[in-house]
Every structure is written in structure tokens, then in C-alpha cells.
């Protein structure tokens, strides 16, 4: 296990950079139930995601973004097709394989509610549970990972606060800290900026960007096209469970795609190297 | 209208219809009429208050049920539910209670015949209750179809009357566990549970219930004009005598009852005088973790048999839970247990399976006496059989261990004088 390479820095790197990490969805379909007319959440999806990049899944509500993330996290099994992590199919059959998977992939659900009064530190420490045995106490290494994650996300002053007394932004940082502490090299985050104000939303995205730059694979779902354009290495555009387009933000987020998928007319406004969109609803 | 006005209005009709409580047809209808006459507002308020009380009660029950151990103490819960039911009925019946004429304080609570063969009524019985009211039982004719709802009255009826006059016995008497007169009971053949419909189907002209029978059963039967004799007290031989007397008066079997009681009292007196000469044995009646202490029926049995009740001497009253260590420290010379009929030996073995108990003198033969529960808890004339059974066990004990115990018996703290005087 590589330890933080810049121990004196204010933002130590807490996870190993795995350049060979990959998450591949091969012709994945997920239907609800066996019937021929059962609703299909994701259809014939092919994705090949590589470490060191920040991938944003975009699409209107119900386009299958969350389902794709859950498939990638191994929370649901595809009806057909395969999900490969580092070239191996996800194995969810046994408790031990689930725990092994948990050490490699971290997942942050969109909505989160904690029962009982867990503190920030306790929540972050939960990322270490898959790393130690049932009866074993947390090791010093486990504690170091937790400390480092808390520090990196500036949660040290909040570490003894009870989770549900935190603001939305703070809670989202706690979730990110948990992902960091898990040492997973694949981070899957479902709408991490929802319910956050502008500054906190930017902060979360900056952290995600940095984590990707350190060599992790970070996959987000977002609704904010401008944020996707600014932070993503790659954008995957989904509509009704199908892949519409996949490529760099500039390629994917053109006016035609946006009109087709989101039913809005987008005008791009440029100012130097920066750009923004102006949206008008299409009159149908 | 103030709140107190409303209250008064709500209660007024009840006060006006102050009549005797006993079930005679015209009177039995009054509660309904009384309610109908209430002022509308008063009645709705009364209803509301009743509902409120019911809601509170339900909440209380729900709260208890929710907090109660795992919500699963069926007997307890059943108990509390039925208590709740009683409370509710009492609330509804507030007027009913106050209908009893307030008369001079009663000196005698037993039923007695107040008039015989007057007009179209065969006999009227009356009793004073503890609250000073008077309760009447009007019998239009000599009962020929009697239904009994307590084991004790089952046994007494079978003793006093030919089976043809008994229309039904309580279901308890159908099983060997409770009834001792099984052969006699089977001659009647009809056993009815506590439902008014079942009882009415037998077209009874007298129903005998107990104070612990469902209150609405008594009320319902009276409401349709069936005379109901409700037995109130079962604490000891005096009450049993009163109950036998009341039953005899209600069914017209006074001579047979007198004979029964004379013979019973004779037998009791024989036991008393015989046992008075014997050394006072330190005894304990112990059923399922409970000692029958002062005031219990068995305490009286022990006193008649000239034994000292160690639980009563320790200052306990009624049924008192004690642990085996306490029992060992009391060190009784004889212990009476109760069990299912036919399981007496198994119960004895179970009791003696505890090594610490076996190590006491109770481990010696004849010191653990198991009596079938049917006899152990009897409140009919069979009480005399119980007394004789206990006396016989004490006789045997005195014969085998008498001298031995006299030297071993150490004085218990807080003992009473009754025992010491007869210790040789």
C-alpha cells in the first residue's frame, strides 16, 4: 500500500494511483422483471472507463444515470451483459467477494439518511470496515487513513459532530472523505452537487477533479451541463436508458445533442477560454 | 350550561330510577328508559365523556401493551384487556350502580328469604351489600331449570337436587381437572360456557353466577327477565356456608342444605377437636411459587387442622410469592402442593428435584403432600373433604415423625401464640 507521497502537504494523497484501473460495461441491459414488456432501465450500454479521468453521466430525469452507477457499483446485476472491474467480472456471490469489491469501488448514493447519532469520524471510519476482520479492532493504518481523509476534506474540526447536524455541503464532504478513506480507486458519486449552493458545489467538483488527477476513476452524475463541460474529461450522454453520445465535453455537449436529449435550445456564450450556455425551452 | 349542570343532568335519571338491582323484568328495563329520558346535551356529553374515557383507556392499554415485555404476556394482557372491559362497562353503568336504594347499613350480607308464596311470586330473596344497598332476587316460581356457572355451585346443586332440575352446569365441571363430582355431573350432561345466548337457549328459570363471572352476562340475563343469583364471597367456610344457604333458599332445598351443613360442620368439628390434641405442625401451602398466607382459604384449613401456617406467621397475607431459599429458611415440617389431577407424584418429584429442598426435612417421606388442584381450591361443601385430607396428612406425619420434629423444631421469628400453646 502506498502511503501519501507528500506527507507535509495540506492535502495528502490518500489513495494509490492505479493507472491500469478500468471499469467496463459490456452490452449491459437492466430490465425490471422477466416479462417481455418489463420496463427497461438501461439498454445495450457499452462503456469503457479508465483510471485518471473524471467521467460525467448526463441526461434528463429517468435516462438511466443512477441505474448505470448502481450497475457499475455492483449494487444490481445486469439482466444481460457484463460489468468488468479491472478486466474481471464483478462477483457479488459471496460476502467475501462483496468485501473485496468494497475495497476497490466506493459509491455515494444521491440521498443519504443516517439512523442514530453517528459522528463524522465514525461515518468516515466505516470505509475501513471491509479492510479488517469481523472481530478485529481497527489497525493503526486504518486510523491513519481516516485521519488523512478527514484532513484532506477539512473535516477535522467537525469530526465529533453528529452527522445529521451538518449542512448539506459538509455532509457531502463527509461522503467524499469516506470514499477517500476506503482507498478505492473507483469512485461512483450520484449527483454529489444536488442540494448544494454554488460555492459548495464547486468545492465538491474541485475535489473530484483533484481525485481524478491523482489517478482514480471518478464517475459522477450531474444535471449541470456547464459544470460537466468545465470539470469532466469525458461526458456520457444518456436518454431513456440508451447511450446517445460519449466523448469529450466539447464533442458531446453540442447544440444538436442538447436539443435532442434535453429538449432545450442551447446558445453557447464565449468569453476568452471560458464558455457558458443560455437555454431556451423548445416549443413543441 | 356549566359543566357541573351537565354532569348532574347526566346522572339525574339514574338517581330517579332508584330501584332494587335484582333482575325482575319490569325493573330490568329501566336503565334503557332512564337513558332515553336524559336531556340531549347531557346525554351527548355523557357519551363524549364516556368515549374520552374509552380513548384514554385504549391509549393506556396500548401504551402498556407497547411497553410490556415484548408485548407478549398473554395472560397479563388478557387480564388487562378484560379489566379494561370492566372499567368501560362500569363507566357505562354508572347509573346502574346508584340505582340501589340506600338503606340502613347492612349487618348481614347473606341472602335471606324476605317473603314467601305471595301472589304470583313464589319467593323473594334479599341481601344487603357492603355499600349499604339492598339487592332483591324475585323468583316467580320454584326453579326447575337451573343453570350454574361456577364450579362451587355446580357441586352444591348436584348435592342438593336431582339432576332433572339442573338444566346446565359450567364447562369447568366437564373436565376431570376441576370437578370432583364427575360422575354426578355427567348425569346432567349439559355444560355451558359463559355466553348469555347459550344459557338462554336452555330456558333457565334461575342462573347462578359468581362475582367473578363476566358482569355483562349477569346484566344481560337480568335484562331479559331471568333471575340471577350472584354469589359474592368465597373466603373460607363462613362464605361457603352462606353460599350453600343462598343456593338452597333460591332452589327451595333448605332441608337438604341444612342436613349437608350439619354433617359438614360435624366433620369439621371432629377434625378440629382431634387435631387440637395433636402437636401443632409448622405447615406451608405452596403452589407455583406462591405461599398461601394469612387470609387465604388454605390458611383457614390449616388453622382448623391445628397447624401453624409459617407463611402467615412470617407476616405475609393472601397469596405471596416467595423463593425456595425463603421456604428452606422457614423450614416447614410439611408442605402442601397442588397439581393437576393424576399428576400428583410428578409434581412432588419436581418440587424435590431442587437439591437444596431435598436436603431439608421435606426430603423425608410424608412431608410433601400433593393435593389435586380441584380439591385444593374448592369453595363448595367439598371444603370439608379438603380439611379431612389435610388433617389425615398431618395425622400421618405426627404418627411417623412426631417425636423427631418436637426436638428439631426451632422457633421461627415472629411466631404467634396460637401455635406455641399447643406445642407439647
Amino acid at each position, binding site marked *: 500500500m502506498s502511503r501519501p507521497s507528500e506527507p507535509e502537504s495540506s492535502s495528502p494523497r490518500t489513495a494509490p494511483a492505479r493507472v491500469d484501473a478500468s471499469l467496463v460495461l459490456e452490452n449491459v441491459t437492466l430490465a425490471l422483471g422477466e416479462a417481455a414488456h418489463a420496463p427497461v432501465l438501461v439498454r445495450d450500454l457499452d462503456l469503457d472507463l479508465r483510471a485518471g479521468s473524471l467521467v460525467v453521466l448526463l441526461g434528463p430525469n429517468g435516462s438511466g444515470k443512477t441505474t448505470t452507477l448502481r450497475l457499475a457499483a455492483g449494487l444490481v446485476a445486469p439482466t444481460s451483459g457484463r460489468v468488468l472491474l479491472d478486466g474481471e467480472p464483478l462477483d457479488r456471490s459471496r460476502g467475501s467477494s462483496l468485501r473485496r469489491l468494497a475495497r476497490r469501488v466506493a459509491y455515494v448514493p444521491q440521498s443519504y439518511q443516517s439512523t442514530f447519532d453517528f459522528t463524522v469520524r465514525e461515518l468516515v471510519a466505516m470505509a475501513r470496515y471491509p479492510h479488517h476482520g469481523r472481530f478485529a479492532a481497527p489497525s493503526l493504518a486504518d486510523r491513519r487513513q481516516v485521519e488523512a481523509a478527514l484532513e484532506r476534506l477539512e473535516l477535522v474540526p467537525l469530526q465529533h459532530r453528529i452527522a445529521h447536524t451538518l449542512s448539506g455541503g459538509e455532509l457531502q464532504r463527509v461522503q467524499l472523505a469516506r470514499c477517500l478513506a476506503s482507498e478505492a480507486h473507483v469512485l461512483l458519486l450520484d449527483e454529489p452537487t444536488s442540494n448544494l449552493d454554488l460555492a459548495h458545489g464547486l468545492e465538491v467538483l474541485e475535489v473530484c477533479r483533484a481525485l481524478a488527477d491523482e489517478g482514480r476513476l471518478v464517475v459522477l452524475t450531474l444535471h449541470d451541463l456547464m459544470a460537466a463541460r468545465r470539470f469532466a474529461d469525458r461526458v456520457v450522454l444518456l436518454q431513456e436508458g440508451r447511450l446517445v453520445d460519449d466523448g469529450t465535453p466539447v464533442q458531446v455537449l453540442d447544440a444538436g445533442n442538447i436539443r435532442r436529449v434535453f429538449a432545450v435550445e442551447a446558445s453557447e456564450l464565449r468569453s476568452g477560454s471560458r464558455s457558458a450556455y443560455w437555454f431556451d425551452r423548445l416549443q413543441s | 350550561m356549566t359543566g357541573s349542570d351537565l354532569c348532574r343532568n347526566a346522572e339525574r335519571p339514574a338517581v330517579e330510577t332508584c330501584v332494587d338491582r335484582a333482575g325482575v323484568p319490569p325493573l330490568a328495563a329501566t336503565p334503557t328508559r332512564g337513558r332515553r329520558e336524559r336531556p340531549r346535551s347531557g346525554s351527548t356529553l355523557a357519551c363524549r365523556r364516556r368515549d374520552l374515557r374509552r380513548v384514554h383507556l385504549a391509549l393506556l392499554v396500548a401504551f402498556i401493551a407497547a411497553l410490556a415485555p415484548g408485548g407478549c404476556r398473554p395472560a397479563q394482557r388478557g387480564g388487562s384487556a378484560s379489566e379494561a372491559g370492566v372499567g368501560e362497562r362500569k363507566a357505562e353503568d354508572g347509573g346502574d350502580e346508584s340505582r340501589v336504594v340506600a338503606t340502613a347499613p347492612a349487618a348481614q350480607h347473606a341472602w335471606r328469604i324476605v317473603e314467601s308464596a305471595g301472589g304470583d311470586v313464589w319467593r323473594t330473596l334479599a341481601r344487603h351489600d357492603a355499600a349499604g344497598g339492598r339487592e332483591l332476587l324475585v323468583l316467580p316460581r320454584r326453579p326447575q331449570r337451573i343453570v350454574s356457572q361456577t364450579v362451587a355451585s355446580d357441586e352444591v346443586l348436584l348435592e342438593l337436587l336431582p339432576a332433572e332440575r339442573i338444566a346446565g352446569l359450567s364447562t369447568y365441571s366437564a373436565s376431570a381437572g376441576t370437578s370432583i363430582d364427575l360422575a354426578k355431573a355427567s348425569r346432567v350432561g349439559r355444560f355451558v360456557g359463559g355466553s348469555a345466548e347459550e344459557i338462554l337457549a336452555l330456558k333457565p328459570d334461575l342462573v347462578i353466577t359468581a362475582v367473578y363471572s363476566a358482569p355483562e352476562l349477569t346484566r344481560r340475563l337480568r335484562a331479559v327477565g331471568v333471575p340471577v343469583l350472584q354469589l359474592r364471597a368465597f373466603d373460607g367456610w363462613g362464605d361457603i356456608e352462606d353460599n350453600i344457604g343462598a343456593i338452597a333458599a333460591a332452589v327451595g332445598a333448605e332441608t337438604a342444605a341444612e342436613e349437608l351443613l350439619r354433617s359438614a360442620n360435624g366433620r369439621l368439628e371432629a377434625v378440629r377437636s382431634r387435631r387440637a390434641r395433636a402437636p401443632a405442625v409448622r405447615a406451608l401451602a405452596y403452589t407455583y411459587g406462591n405461599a398461601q398466607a394469612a387470609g387465604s382459604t388454605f390458611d383457614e384449613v390449616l388453622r382448623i387442622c391445628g397447624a401453624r401456617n409459617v407463611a402467615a406467621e412470617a407476616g405475609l397475607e393472601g397469596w405471596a410469592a416467595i423463593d*425456595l431459599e425463603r421456604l428452606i429458611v422457614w423450614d416447614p415440617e410439611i408442605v402442601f402442593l397442588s397439581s393437576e389431577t393424576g399428576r400428583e407424584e410428578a409434581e412432588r418429584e419436581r418440587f424435590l428435584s431442587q437439591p437444596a429442598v431435598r436436603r431439608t426435612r421435606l426430603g423425608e417421606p410424608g412431608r410433601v403432600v400433593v393435593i389435586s388442584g380441584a380439591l385444593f381450591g374448592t369453595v363448595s361443601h367439598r371444603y370439608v373433604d379438603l380439611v379431612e385430607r389435610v388433617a389425615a396428612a398431618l395425622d400421618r406425619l405426627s404418627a411417623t415423625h412426631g417425636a423427631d420434629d418436637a426436638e428439631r423444631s426451632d422457633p421461627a421469628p415472629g411466631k404467634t401464640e396460637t401455635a406455641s400453646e399447643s406445642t407439647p
Partner: protein
Amino acid sequence: MSPSTPATSPRARRLLLVTALCIATTVAAALASLLLGAAEIPPATVASILFGGAAEAEIETAGGSLEPEMARSIVLQLRLPRCLVGLLVGAALAVAGVLLQGLFRNALAAPGVVGTSAGGALGAVLALSFGLGLRSSYLVPLGAIAGAFASLVVVARIARHRGRTSITDLLLAGVALNAFLSALNSFVIARAWIDHEVARRINFWLMGGIADRDWSHVAIALPGCAAGIALAIAHARDLDLMLQGEDLARSLGVDGERLKNVLLLATALLVGSAVAVSGVVGFVGLVVPHVVRLAIGPSHRALVLLSAVAGAAFVLLSDLIARTAVSPGELQLGIVTAFVGAPFFVFLLIRERGRVETL
């Protein structure tokens, strides 16, 4: 900021204090339960009996003298089993409460919620009404354990839909089953009431308590309690994760379905064993986990361990009250736990209502 000082957490500090307090209370309660009793055996004698020392010729007590063999019997055959059964029952009920509160994400869940206690009681009541109570002292307890298991199997079957068990379904099924089993229980008792003695025997058992327990009761309770508590400790962290949501738990390596089954099994073992040897003792499973959670937080490893200790202390202390409050008579243990537990619980709820923010 040094990375190895997690003990600075107020909770961690409190954990030490609470642990010490719980253990001390339990030891004190156990000692008191061994030393106190109707036969006033001097503490030194009790100690020498317990540690196998030579018995004196005659033991002087306040009430007179006692044969040494009798004193031995009282301490070893009456007091020690009672104390051990109290420890086991308290620990089992408290841990069962922890598991169910975690499983249902509701601090008001109790071992009775999924019908386990009712099932256990029904099993025992059936055994008693068939007269098995007199055949062997093992049959009634085994009936209780079987009933607890059966009720859980039924509740899991009802709640399971397409291979999954939703918490809501489980809770509703538990409530329904509880009501049904209670009705069945009442029915059996009502039938048994025809034989007055059987009904009395049933009532005596249901009222419960740990008076007059012997070594057979210890033997009956021990395996189930030990297995149940071991399962609870092994899965305590999984329960922490489950409380963060099933998706999150799964992403952190917890098979939710399997966990629910394991925890229900553990609960059945614990409640069945406890009901088997003590009848129905209420409030332990409700109050103890709640109080311990308020003191040390919701992390289940510590919660399970400390609740076991605190539950044992609670039952032993309640039993001491039951033994001494109306001496020379006794109270029912369940009455004492309810009397002590209910007001304390209400007090805690009121006190905690205003202070969510603070740690």
C-alpha cells in the same frame, strides 16, 4: 494533528467511563445477589463455599444456625444459578434489543416487535398445556426456543418478497404476527383454564422472573445466549453500515439479505433462550440499548458488548429489588423491570428531546 489520537473523541473517553461503570455495577449486582438471601449466610462463608474452601462445622446466621451442607446447597444450587440466569437473561434481552433496534432503524423496537417473544411464549404455553412441564424441565424451555424460531420463520416468509425483505414489511408482519400469536396464546390459556391447575402453571411461568432457577436453566440458556451474542458481535459493524442505507451498506461489502437473516436468527436464539428460562421479562430489550446508545453512541460493536453487560446488571438489580422490596415475600421480576424501566425511559426521552446538537 497527530494521526494516532482518536481517543481524544468525547465518545471514546465516555466509552471507557461507561465500560468501567457497567462492569463495576454488574459485578456488584452479582455479588449482592450471591450474598443476599433469606438464609443470612455470612459473606465470608459464601466466599469460602464459592471458592471451594472447607466448610465450617456450623454456620451461625441471624435467624439461627445452618448446617454447612445446607449452606452449600443454598449458595451453589439456588443463589448461583439464579445469579447466572439473571446475567444471561439480561445480556440476551439487551443484545436482542440492540439487534432489533438496528434492524428496524427504530430506537423503540423491542424483542417483542417481530413476534419472537410471543412465539416463544406460545411455544412454552403449548408445552405447558400439553402437560410437558411435568415430564422434564427441559421441554418447556425447548418449546419456547422452538416457538421463537417458528415465529421468525413465519415472519420472514410473510415479509419476503422476490427474495428481499423490506424493513417495513418485516415490521408490519411482526406486528400482525404478534397480535395473532397473542390471540393464540390467550386461546390456549382459555382452553387450558378448563383445567385450573394447568392455567395456573402457565400463569406462573408467564409471570416469569428468575427465582428458583437451577443449573438446568443455566444449561438451557447458555448455548443460545452465547451463540446469539457471538453472532451479534460478529455482525455489529455490518449493522452500522446497514443503518446508512442498504445501497451504501452493500457498496461497503454487506449482503443485506444475509445480514437480516443472521440477525433474526441471533434474535430468536437470544429471545427464545431468555423466554425459556425466565418467562417474559419486559423493558430490558427496550431500555438498556437505548440508554447505552445515549451514553456511548450508536456504533454497534461497543453497543452490543456494553448492552450485554448493562442488561445483565439491570436484570440482577431489578431482581434484587424484587427480592427485597416486600420481603419476606417477592415481587415479580417483570413488574420491577417495568416499574424501574418505564419512568427512566420516559425521563430519558424528555431529557434528550432538547439536546440533539450536543454530542
